[in-house]
């Protein structure tokens, strides 16, 4: 088995107009910048994008928004140091927002990948984000029901990847990516170092290859924060 792809464009070609795409990362940490930029080159439209945030500056997800590729964001915190790309379209009514508490977002993605259609959580009970959601009492306390979240394609970044798709992550760049890898109908990964089968200690595999459809090596990946500090923009 060899899930290695020849290029990022081969991976992102799976994203079609109108799809739901999960993109890994928490702010710039774990953001697959090169893969997002390859997606911008491919330019699918009318996407629903799932990420914790809604872009920062003029690269990555912010650049996708500026290119008019995103119809809806599902996120917990659409604010950043430079949130203009999202903010301007949102206030103009040109991009939809589904605001989800961060832990609920993580668990909805996990549930989507694990085949659990819904679950109950205390988060947002008694707030406007719980309005219209079914609730139930367990052991004397009210919980609300939240539904799973699945993606047509998940695009994530990992540190090491082998031909079977086994992955490790680098520090806090892990964040949502192992969950999104599970929740994507197809999952493509930019890995900082492609290694041979056996080079990743099985004890250290964080995402087992069964959740992965393709890997592409991008050595020395760019960091969103570093790009924003030099006011980079894409394309």
């Amino acid at each position, binding site marked *: 088995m060899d899930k290695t792809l020849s290029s990022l464009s081969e991976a992102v070609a799976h994203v079609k107009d109108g799809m739901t795409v999960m993109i890994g990362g*928490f*702010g*710039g*940490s*774990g953001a697959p910048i090169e893969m997002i930029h390859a997606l911008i080159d491919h330019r699918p439209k009318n996407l629903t994008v799932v990420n914790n945030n809604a872009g920062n500056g003029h690269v990555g997800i912010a650049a996708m928004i500026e290119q008019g590729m995103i119809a809806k964001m599902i996120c*917990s*915190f*659409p*604010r*950043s*140091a430079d*949130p203009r790309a*999202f*903010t301007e379209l*949102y*206030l103009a009514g040109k991009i939809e*927002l589904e*605001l*989800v*508490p*961060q*832990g*609920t*977002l*993580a*668990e909805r*993605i*996990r549930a989507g990948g694990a085949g659990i259609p819904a679950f109950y*959580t*205390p*988060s*947002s*009970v*008694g*707030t*406007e*984000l719980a309005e219209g959601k079914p609730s139930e009492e367990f052991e004397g306390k009210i919980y609300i029901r939240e539904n799973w979240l699945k993606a047509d394609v998940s695009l994530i970044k990992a540190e090491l990847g082998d031909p079977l798709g086994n992955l490790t*992550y*680098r*520090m*806090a*760049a*892990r*964040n*949502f*990516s*192992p*969950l999104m890898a599970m929740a994507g109908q197809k999952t493509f990964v930019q890995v900082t170092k492609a290694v041979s089968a056996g080079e990743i200690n099985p004890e250290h595999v*964080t995402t087992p290859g069964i959740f992965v459809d393709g890997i592409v090596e991008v050595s020395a990946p760019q*960091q*969103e*924060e*570093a790009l924003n500090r030099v006011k980079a923009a894409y394309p």
Partner: protein
Amino acid sequence: MIDVTEIKLTNTQIAWRAAQDLQDGSYVNLGIGFPEMVAAFQPDGRDVIYHTENGVLGFGKAPPPGEEDWDLINAGKRAVTLKPGTAFFHHADSFAMVRGGHLDLAILGAYQVAQNGDIANWSTGRGGVPAVGGAMDLVHGAKTIAVVTDHVTKKGEPKLLKACTLPLTGAGCVKRVYTSLAVLDISEVGFVLREKLATISMDDLQAVTGAELHAEGEVIELNAPGDL
């Protein structure tokens, strides 16, 4: 009546006061911004393990400028450092720690806190772009939810109220409030005053508080070092 814009603790002093109650061996989440300052005043000899929503437990202080590793950040997207014993985990595990009741303490900022423990800290209700982050999860997670805040808004309006007027983050969650004028617990009766600045009277404090203050036993003098 006193002018509470003149006589009050600074945010740094409030953070210092909250830090004095950090327990040895506890797992603590500090909200982004002001609450993060609490870690700087952790008393010597107490071992506190800090949790951040984006999947790090037991991280260290901010690195010197120029030495940031942007894969090693906290929930406020600020760079932190490794310490012996740091652990990484994905977001679902991180919020299992939160909602599962595994954290001992979360210290959050707030726009408003009500006498029944309701907290509003995510939306001013004025439009713009709404953002919630992990706040609605955190208020249901830790064994104790504490708030650090100015006692009044910039306009001088009370932040401690009978009922919150802004959109709630969580209902009946807050147990303790550290303000610029006082330290209060929230119990079945409402706000219970534990400490207040010596320079203000009970009447002064009640006048800038939007709910009845209760006293149970002695009210201690609230002190913080002046040179923070």
